[in-house]
Each structure stands twice: as C-alpha cells, then as structure tokens.
C-alpha cells in the first residue's frame, strides 16, 4: 500500500517536473544520444508513412513548412510567412537559405512535388485530397500559391504532421521512390548515417542546417520491441532514453537511481467499434447494452496501472474542440435489460477483432469477461496493425487505438466515404463532417465538432474508453527532451551529459 502511494506521488511529480535534471550544469556533454524505440520503420518516405513511430524518426531528417503547436498556434519553418488570398488560396513565402542533405537547394518546386507525392500515395491521399495541384502556382522559386478544391481548415495540421515533410524533388527523381525510402534526402537537422534493419537507425548532425544546429552529434535509435527490455537497457546503461514505457515499469523507473519518468497527455485513445452493417449491432439497444456492460474505470485502472484516464469524450482532450461528455456509464443490470428488450435475453455470440499488441490483448480479455457477465460471448481474433486496418471491416466488433491530433482525421472512421470500418452510412454525419472541414473560423469550427461529438456519443457506434498518456523514461543525464503528445521528439534539442 505504501509502495502504491509512493508510486502515485511519483507519477504526479513526473508529470510536473521538467525534463531537466539537477546536477548536470558544468558537466561535459556526450556526442551520442542512444534512444530505445519499439519498432523499426518500414520506410523513410514521409508520404508513404502513416504511423507515429515512422514520423518520430523522420522528423529529425526532414523539415516541414510550418509547425502547429498543441494550442493551435502556427510557427514558421520552411515557410516564413503566409496568407489566405481567399478561402481557396494560400500563398506561402519560403526560406531562401535551405539546402538538402545532398547540397541541392530547396525551392517551391520541392513543395509542389511533395504535395503531388502525397496525393498519389494511398497512405496520404485522404489528407491531401482537398489540394488542387493543377491550379497551384509557383509564383517564383520562393513563393507558392496553393489552391484548394474546398476550404481546408486542417491545412496547417496536414503541413506540420509527418506526411507534410518536404522531400527533395531532385533526389527522388534521381533515385526513384523505392531507393529514396531507404536513403532519404531531407533538409532536417540530422542526416541518416546508417540503417541496420530491425536493429538500429543512426543519425548524424547536418552541419549545413539552416536553423539552430543539433546539440548532440549522433543519435542512435535501438529497435527493441519488448517493453521490459527497453527499460532494462536504460537500467543497464545501454540507452539514454526510452520511448513507450509500459505502465507496470513506471514505478520501477521512478525507483531507479539516475533515471526518471517523463509523462504527459497524448492524442492516443482506445475505443471499441461496432460494425453498423451487422444486423445485431445496428440495434441501438444492443450497442448501449455492450457499453453499459463495461466497467471502464476498473478496466483502465487495471491495465494502465493508474497512468491513463477513463475516456470522458469521443476523442482525447489534447485534440481541438474536445467536448467533455462524461464517462459512459457502467450498469450491468441495465445492460441485461436492454439486451432483453432487443430480443436477446440470453445474450449472443459475436466476433471481436483486436490488434495483437500486448496491452490491447490485455484490455480485450477483460472486456470479453465483462461482456460474458451479461451473457455476450465473443470469439476473439488477433491481428497485427496493418492486417487489422485491412480486415477490420470484416468483423462485428473491434478495438482500435487512435493516435491523431486533428478532429477531421480522427472522425474519418465515421464517414461513409471512408466506409470500410464502421459503415454507419449516416447522411447527417457525412454532411456535418464535410462541412466542419471547411470552416476556417476556429470558434465556429469548434461548435460544429461539438455538435458532431454529441451525435456520436448518442449513436454509440463506438465506445471510447481510455485516454492514454505518452510515457518516456530518461536518464538524468538527458536534458531538453520535450514531452510531445504524438511522440514527435526533436532530437536536435536534446543534450546528453557524461
């Protein structure tokens, strides 16, 4: 009990204390930062990437036009200034002093080329869909006038997340996309030095960088899929920083000498999804019964050991226009009543698809048990992430993790055009989603999303149940490691002391 209280206190501390640790002042710095990450990248091509884990490495190699912070303020990067000429036209002025890693000069051609790659790649196509590239004009090498087919409220989000990373046109054309994906040419603070697939990715400082040059010369990402092993590596001095610490390792790191936990809110959430083309689940009583049957708080507390919060809305509070709807209530008695009302007094059996990640399976086993308590049996299927996205729609119920920081991208799963997962085919929601994307005025846009969230909460096509934090474990010798909700940590700002 005492240990638990200590752990909790430690968590609170960790969330508030900044990354900087006392006692490093005046010490010499090391020229290599070693970081443990959980999976290898399949590609270094930003427009072919749709995983946070890919972007978090790529962001050190590539630059973006702008950077939109979590408060929605847009900061200049490769673009120095910009203005909307009208609702469908955005003019951006570009930096003139930027060179790519292969010494080629950065111009508006590269920007247009990057957009066209985004549109062409299925992985990024939906986020670049509103861009009208035929009408987009390169005014001069450092000015581009971007045209949209419809007003695009999320444009700065698109430009500042991973898919918006600017690639060198000359390099891609010279090497071809496949070779580029292994030896990327960007303009970021680091260059790719070596990449031993499945083992490590080593970056080296780009001394020709236009901005503040990286503090630490080398960054080495070690790929260690087992969460427990990542922490053991930190403990034994193999790495200086660990991404994605398991909840049950948090108190161990806190107790460790010379290391600490850095934890903060994230844009990650867990939700249950129900297929609306399924006869059983298209009954609202059934969906409510399944929602009532789950004790979300007990579930989240057990699996995340107190590090996550029970979901009180349709998407995480870190995302624009979040509306607090309260936690969806737990009431097994009511669940049984509703099942009886729907014509299933003895329950039924359904498929339940889960991504085969440790934590997801753990959540699923508890949910399975809670559903069984009201008579609903499930047949569980496990798939890895990419099979999951491809096959998800073939199953009745599923559990998915979302990790996106823009409402239109989160809510895309409810869109009929997207189709393959929930398939609600609800004209009202389609209309509202399409409309919300085009509202530039943030107050009005927030209003539109609030309305959508009310509707979704009521429809119960999904049951969001957990908002999970990002958890890093750092050596006390590491400074300047910023806790980003999407794990997009800029390594160029990190110092490691001896």
């Amino acid at each position: 009990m005492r240990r638990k209280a200590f752990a909790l206190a430690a968590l609170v501390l960790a969330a508030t204390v900044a990354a900087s640790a006392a006692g490093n002042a005046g010490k010499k710095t090391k020229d290599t930062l070693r970081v443990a990450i959980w999976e290898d990248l399949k590609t270094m091509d930003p427009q072919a990437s749709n995983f946070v884990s890919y972007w978090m490495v790529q962001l050190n190699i590539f630059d973006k036009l702008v950077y939109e912070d979590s408060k929605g303020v847009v900061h200049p990067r490769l673009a120095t200034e910009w203005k909307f000429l009208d609702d469908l036209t955005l003019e951006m002025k570009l930096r003139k002093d930027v060179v790519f890693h292969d010494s080629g000069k950065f111009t508006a051609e590269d920007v247009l080329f990057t957009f066209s790659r985004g549109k062409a790649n299925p992985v990024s196509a939906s986020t670049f869909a509103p861009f009208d590239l035929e009408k987009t004009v390169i005014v001069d090498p450092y000015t581009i006038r971007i045209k949209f087919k419809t007003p695009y409220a999320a444009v700065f989000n698109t430009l500042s997340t991973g898919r918006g990373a600017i690639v060198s046109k000359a390099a891609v054309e010279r090497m071809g996309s496949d070779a580029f994906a292994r030896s990327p040419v960007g303009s970021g603070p680091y260059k790719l030095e070596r990449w031993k697939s499945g083992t490590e990715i080593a970056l080296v400082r780009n001394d020709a960088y236009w901005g503040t040059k990286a503090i630490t010369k080398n960054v080495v990402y070690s790929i260690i899929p087992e969460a427990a092993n990542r922490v053991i590596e930190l403990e034994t001095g193999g790495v200086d920083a660990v991404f994605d610490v398991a909840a049950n390792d948090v108190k161990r790191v806190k107790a460790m000498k010379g290391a600490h936990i850095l934890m903060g809110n994230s844009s990650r959430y867990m939700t249950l999804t129900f297929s609306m083309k399924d006869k059983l689940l298209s009954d609202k009583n059934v969906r409510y019964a399944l929602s009532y049957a789950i004790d979300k708080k007990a579930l989240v507390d057990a699996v995340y050991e107190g590090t996550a919060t029970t979901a009180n809305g349709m998407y995480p509070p870190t995302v624009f226009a979040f509306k607090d709807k309260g936690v969806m209530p737990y009431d097994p008695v009511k669940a049984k009543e509703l099942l009886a009302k729907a014509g299933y007094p003895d329950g039924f059996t359904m498929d339940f698809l889960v991504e085969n990640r440790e934590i997801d399976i753990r959540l699923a086993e508890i949910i399975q048990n809670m559903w069984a308590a009201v008579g609903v049996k499930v047949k569980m299927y496990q798939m890895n992430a990419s099979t999951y996205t491809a096959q998800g729609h073939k199953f009745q119920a599923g559990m998915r993790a979302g990790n996106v920081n823009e409402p239109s991208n989160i809510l895309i799963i409810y869109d009929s055009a997207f189709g393959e997962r929930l398939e609600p085919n609800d004209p009202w929601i389609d209309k509202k989603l399409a409309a919300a994307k085009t509202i530039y005025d943030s107050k009005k846009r927030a209003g539109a999303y609030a309305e959508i969230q009310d509707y979704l909460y009521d429809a119960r096509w999904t049951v969001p149940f957990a908002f999970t934090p990002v958890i890093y474990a750092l050596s006390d010798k590491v400074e300047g490691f910023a806790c980003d909700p999407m794990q997009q940590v800029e390594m160029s700002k990190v110092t490691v002391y001896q």
Partner: protein
Amino acid sequence: MIKFIFRRLLMMIPVLIGVSFVIFSMLYFAPGDAADVILGDLATPEDKQLFRAEHGLDKPFLVQYFNYMKGVVTEGDLGTSYVTRQPVTIEIMERFPATLQLSAMSVFLAVVIGVTVGIISATRQYSFIDHLATSLSMIGVSMPNFWQGMMLIIIFSVALRWFPPSGFSTPMHWVLPAVTVGTNASANIMRMTRSSMLEIIRQDYIRTARAKGQTEAVVIWKHALKNALIPIITVVGLSFGRLLGGAVLTESIFSIAGVGKLMVDAIKLKNFPMVQGGVLFIAFVMSIVNLVVDVLYSFADPRIRSMYTRPRTRKAATAKEAA
C-alpha cells in the same frame, strides 16, 4: 566423392522447387488479399487493382508461380518485399549474418558440452555424475527456451549486470542468446552421445581393444567415439538446420533482427515475396547443411564412404537410413 557431392547438389533442385511450390500454394490460398494488407484501408479499389496488376497478382495461380520461378532461376531474383519495397535478397542478407552466427555459436557450444558430458556419462554409467548429467540434460530438453531466455535476462542482465539483455552487436551480446539456444541442442547431443556410446562400448571390438591392453582413453576417444559419431553428427546437423530459421522465439526475446523473426513477421503481414524468398533461402541453406552432414558421415564411417565410390547397394542404403 566429388561426383557424390555433385549428384547431391543436383538432387537439391527438385527439393527446392518442391519447397517453393508448397509455400507458394499455401500463401496463394491463404485468406486475405496482399493489396488490402499492404495498402491498408485508406487505399481506393483502383489503387488496389493497380497494386495487383503491378505485382502480377491478378494472373492465374500457375502463371504467377511460373513467373516467380522464372525470376528466381534466370536472375537469382527472389522478388521485392511488398512492405519495404526492397529486394528480398538484400533484406535476407542483412539479417542472415546474425542468425548464422547465433546458430553456429550455439551449435559449437552444444557440441563441446554435449559430446564431452555424453562421453563422461556413458563411461561412468550409473555413477553420480551420470545421474546428474542425464537429469540436467532431461531438464535441458524439457525447458521452453523462451522461458529460459526470460530467466537468463532477469538473472544475468538485471540482477548481476554481466550481459546486456538485447541486441547482437558485441561478443557480450552473444552470450545469453547462444546459451538459450544452445541449452536445448546440447542436451539433445548429450543424450545422443551417451546412448550411442553405451551401445558401442558393449561391442566386441571394444572389448578386443581393451583386451589388447590399450589405455581406456585411447579406447574411448579413438575407437568408441569414432563409431558413435554418426548419430551425433545427425543430431548436430538437425539442430543447426533447425536453428537457421527456427530461432524465432530467442530472437524476439533478445530483440535480435534475425531471419526467423523476419520470416514470422512477413508471414503475419502476408508479405508473400518475403516469405517465399525467405523459405526458399532457408531451405537452400538447410540442404547445404544436410549435404555437409552426409559428407561428414563418410569421413566418420568407411562403410558409408565406400557407398559413394561403388554403386549404391540396398544394404548400405539401409544402414545409412537406419543411422
């Protein structure tokens, strides 16, 4: 001998074609479409159609298989990974050194420990050492090696800090995985050595050798071991072959980027070219290992050697199979 090796190399061809056909058909008839899996649900039907056309997935089964084999035979091209879009050959060669090294070290460890302990056990049957060794070897073959790997990490990485828990870059990194993989193999080899030595020791010519007054060491290490070698070589060959693609569990516990893990990931992702190429490659290496094992047989046993120089008789073939 050279003729024999050449013939064996020729015999590998139908086996490899068989392997490729089995794996190809298994994957072809597996549910799930590669285009779905690789492109994800964000792709449009047109994208998927394009992908299928680009990779020839819209062709009939036999045509696909034929095209694939044509590439393999004429250009040594195992295809391109759907996932990373890199040549399969490059991906395998990136991972193979670690796997080969892990297998070789484990087998070396296993042979040294297994043969030595096996001989000691056999020569002192029913002694305390024999009982201890047989019990330990029994535990060795019974222990799930992923469990053993986890325990080794807890003891030697976390508690004692002697060896790093993951990776495979320096000699210190090699120890725990090699021990994990080697335990099972050495237990097997020890058991095989012991039982075949026990059988040999009772044979007449050993008695004769003893009667002739040769020292016990000469009797055991020269006469007996030489004759007990065949089954030992078989077990060594088998373990080595098995490790080349089968050390998946150890690789995942110690985060080693080896061929086994590559293959299991590829199978889960339905990355067909990777799976086909990988299995074919592993089968090729295993065939080579088997060939080496057969050549070693002939060094160990003159009866078998004579089989290669004279026309193969049924009796000799039987002797070999029985071994």
